């Protein structure tokens, strides 16, 4: 909407299109490389969404393949797959969002209160480190713990006289494992974001509270958390906007693509990948992909509208 207004303003000016174009040419040239990349790799692929309505045939290509209407979607939603992957994606992401905000805010406040500031800095640095490891690397770390023959956990279990666990087919344990590693990898990063807004809180509030005789706990409850609230709201709502997109690496690499675990680890992203690369069902994969894109889009836009109502300054658009 803002764009339309802008274009109207421009035509309202007496300058012709050509004049404007010529005047802004040097800057346009600087934007051009990025624009080309955006168009080639972000907009052109949207043409691939057509495949959701086609029966793909390699020889006929994307545009030549036969049009089949909503058949792919019919097949997708007839199976229980659609329900399972939607449920898994939303439940996992919902849990991650909740735990992330609670833990990150708690850790940030804790680090901020530590008496030894140097030590707090060291903690922060170490907590953030897992964020920079790839999921493939993390999957090997997890493997050193969960491997059936050699894993640390199974050796500990047998040492304690307990039965060993076949971790890579124990479906019930994976919601916990996945949640743990997700938090393990990302909580330090979120903590940094909250820490930076913690240091921005004016000391005046605390001084006034001390004069009024507020305890530390009361200060945290009535000053720190309310001051962090805008940041929390924005990050949570933006995360809710992306609730339909799972972290592919977490769900694909960590369980090592183990078949028996699919009921607990299959999310939309892994489903699409497997349909595309492993079973070669392009129609089904692209139907699930378009389903994700469309619902994801609605959620992101919706989330932003909500943010704009609550915290206009923090909305993405």
């Amino acid at each position, binding site marked *: 909407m*803002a764009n339309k207004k802008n274009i109207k303003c421009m035509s309202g000016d007496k300058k012709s299109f050509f004049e*404007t174009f010529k005047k802004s040419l*040097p*800057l*346009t040239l600087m*934007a051009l*490389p*990025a*624009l080309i*990349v*955006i168009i080639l*790799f972000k907009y*052109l*692929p*949207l*043409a*691939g969404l057509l*495949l959701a309505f086609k029966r793909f045939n390699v020889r006929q290509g*994307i545009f030549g393949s036969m049009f089949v209407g909503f058949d792919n979607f019919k097949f997708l939603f007839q199976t229980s797959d659609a329900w399972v992957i939607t449920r898994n994606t939303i439940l996992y992401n919902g849990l991650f969002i909740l735990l992330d905000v609670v833990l990150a805010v708690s850790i940030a406040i*804790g*680090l901020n*209160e*530590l*008496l030894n500031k140097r030590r707090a800095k060291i*903690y*922060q*640095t*170490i907590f*953030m480190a897992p964020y*920079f*490891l790839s999921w*493939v*690397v993390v*999957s*090997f*770390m*997890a*493997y*050193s713990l969960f*491997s059936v*023959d050699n894993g*640390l956990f199974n050796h500990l279990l047998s040492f304690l006289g307990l039965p060993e666990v076949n971790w890579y087919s124990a479906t019930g344990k994976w919601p916990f494992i996945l949640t743990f590693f997700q938090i393990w990898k990302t909580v330090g990063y979120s903590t940094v974001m909250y820490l*930076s807004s913690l240091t921005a809180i004016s000391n005046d509030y605390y001084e006034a509270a001390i004069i009024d005789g507020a305890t*530390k706990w009361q200060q945290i409850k009535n000053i720190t958390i309310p001051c962090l609230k805008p940041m929390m709201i*924005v990050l949570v709502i*933006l995360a809710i906007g992306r609730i339909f997109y799972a972290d*592919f*690496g977490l769900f694909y*690499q960590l369980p090592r693509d183990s078949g028996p675990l699919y009921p607990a680890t299959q999310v939309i992203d892994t489903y699409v*990948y497997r349909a*595309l690369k492993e079973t070669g069902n392009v129609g089904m994969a*692209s139907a699930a*992909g*378009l389903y994700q*894109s469309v619902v*994801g889009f609605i959620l992101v*836009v919706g989330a932003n509208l909500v943010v704009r109502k609550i915290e206009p300054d*923090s*909305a*993405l658009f």
Partner: protein
Amino acid sequence: MSRFFGRKAKDEFNDDLKINKISKKANGILNGLFGIWVLICILPLLLVVIVSFSSEQSIFENGYSFFPSEWSLDAYNFFFRLGDQLVRSYGITIFVTVFGTLFSMFITAMFAYVLSRSDYAYNKIFTFLMLFTMLFNGGIVANYMVNTQILGLGDSINALIFPMSINAFYVIVLRTFYKSIPMEIIEAARIDGCSEARTFFQIVAPLSKPGLATIGMFTLIAYWNDWFLGMLYIVDQKKYPVQTLLWSMQNSLEFMKQSSVNALEYSEMAKNAPTDSGRMALTVLVVLPILLAYPYFQKYFVKGLTVGGVKG
């Protein structure tokens, strides 16, 4: 302010702050909790490192253990003797990371600058074009089909570089950063007859070093850590970047052995290849550069996150 009140008032104020600090006991509990989380962050990685230096016999007896009965360099020797694939993959990753980061930074930095200029006529429409990519994207299938069928990226190193060369979020962070530079400086340069490109490269970019460094680091890590594009687009395993190579080792070291030139040496090695420690050794080799660089780059992240903010 405190000077105005004089020394006495300031001391009293400091006493108040001291009272406001948490108790020694609470501090101890916090340190204990954080200490545990530090161990949880570090121990899995330490285990991988120790296993990579354990002998196969020791792993056979004790499993993956923090205290192997026998240390050994077999896993690393294996890679150095038969590791032409490792060298090739490292080469590909280094090329992709260096070239990709330079290319990505070049286009992102210029684009963000143009968008930060409120006097630019197409500002709004290009900002929208960029923001829209954050809201709606084709997903894996659409990208894969178009990139392989139309753009010819299938099994090509280009597939590892260009699809991730622009990130709308980084553009927003940089744009915010540029906006903090006073417009007067840019105006002054223009009056002195400085071209737009020169204004950017000689005045704006040097002033934006902290922001550029942060985004550069993020991009660098993203390229180094990428296994997904390699897994999706690269068919010929010889062209795998290291992360994808590591992924392909999840089940066996077979491929590493096959890629060896010397068939005789292969058959000899195949019998007693250090499979278990070998995988962990490769994990260590993949993660080592990140770990070595981490102490230097982590401060940029903290700074950059503080500077950029969420919104422009």
